[in-house]
């Protein structure tokens, strides 16, 4: 047993803290201590992207980040995208374009796409494929995911206030 650390950060706009051993992975803190089970554990080897969360403006694979590295961070998970009971444009677009089948990869996929659209609000298909290359989906063949991101990008461009 090593020294535990009390780590404080902002999670979807709310100040939270957790007492962790240095070896605790962020995905475990989120799921087991902070009741945020939107980010999923897929491969736990930083390949699949199901555990993607947004930390200080970066899409990160939370299975390969230590919670102690996140002191003072500003974090967003899939739970933070819906606002006042209204789905985010990306969530709505994944629904409308059938951008998911089993849904396991979807929280990571949408959280990554959310950051991608902030960095590049008008991405080409190639930009989307390159930008989502760290997220694996074993159901859809990706085509509808790309359509969903394109559709959300168009909606957000038409109504930027909802971003």
């Amino acid at each position: 047993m090593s020294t535990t650390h009390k780590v404080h950060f902002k999670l979807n706009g709310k100040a939270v803290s957790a007492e962790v051993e240095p070896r605790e992975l962020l995905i475990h803190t989120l799921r087991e201590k902070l009741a945020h089970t939107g980010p999923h554990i897929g491969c736990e080897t930083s390949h699949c992207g199901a555990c993607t969360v947004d930390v200080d403006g970066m899409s990160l694979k939370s299975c390969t980040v230590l919670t102690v590295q996140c002191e003072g961070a500003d974090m967003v998970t899939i739970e933070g995208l819906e606002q006042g009971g209204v789905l985010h444009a990306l969530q709505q677009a994944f629904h409308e374009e059938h951008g998911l089948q089993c849904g396991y990869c979807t929280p990571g996929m949408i959280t990554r796409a959310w950051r991608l659209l902030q960095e590049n609000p008008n991405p080409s298909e190639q930009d989307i494929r390159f930008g989502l290359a760290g997220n694996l989906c074993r159901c859809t063949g990706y085509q509808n995911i790309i359509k969903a991101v394109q559709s959300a990008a168009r909606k957000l461009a038409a109504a930027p206030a909802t971003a």
Partner: protein
Amino acid sequence: MIPPAFEYHAPRSVADALKLLGDLGPEAKLLAGGHSLLPMMKLRFAEPRHLIDLGRIPALRGIEQVGNAVHIGAMTTEHQLLHSPLLADKLPLLVEGAGWIADPQVRYKGTIGGDISHGDPGNDHPALMLALDASFVLKGPKGERMVAADGFFLSLYTTLLEPDEILTQIRIPIPAAGSGGAYIKLKRKTGDFATAATAVMLRAQGGVVAEARIALTNAASTPLRARAAEDALRGKAVDAASLREAARLAMDICEPSADQRGDADYKRAMCGEMTRRAIETAHARALKA
């Protein structure tokens, strides 16, 4: 998978990090982006008792031009390399290389210094550094020294970096006018290491190659500089015959090990092909530069 227990330290300056490294000794490891070290710790390939996180030292980040060189802080991330207007202008080869590394999420965390000092011949920066004639600033308890990339990589996971030293900065000379570079990589899928990859920087003058630097990724236990191929190309026009000869000479120095990416003969052949394509592309770019 959860790593074995360790103590965590987050120094705020290079001096504090060096002091910790000296005090804690060989049981301590430096944590950069963590996307090589943490997976190795999960698998118990590495079991450090202490991690010294370099992530809270702002002095280790940043990209700036200093005279005729670009200085890059060791903790600068692949994402930052990929989106740097200065690099796009002065060292586009490095931007091209960063785009081939891992995937977007990993590039937000992975650092150029971590990639280099890990000493993994499958990493992409080592060959890029050889092609770009980079130097590394190493800081230790006795001060600072600068070493060339060429000669830094000793064997698998072993470099010139001493256990009490930290790689703090990468310095890359800005290539002369008329230069072009290319990094051509064959990989099975996003996030995979290279089956074979070649980095080339060359300068064209008067219809021939005036200078060339050629380096190979994942072709042996260290990145390789293909000197014989460079020599063969110098003074020649880039045509089918000179490309074939340079590729053959690059293949000659490969000692790839067979794994799930292919057997040794296949990897050697792919190294030749990546070399041929990288020279051709670098040359085309040099003519436009």
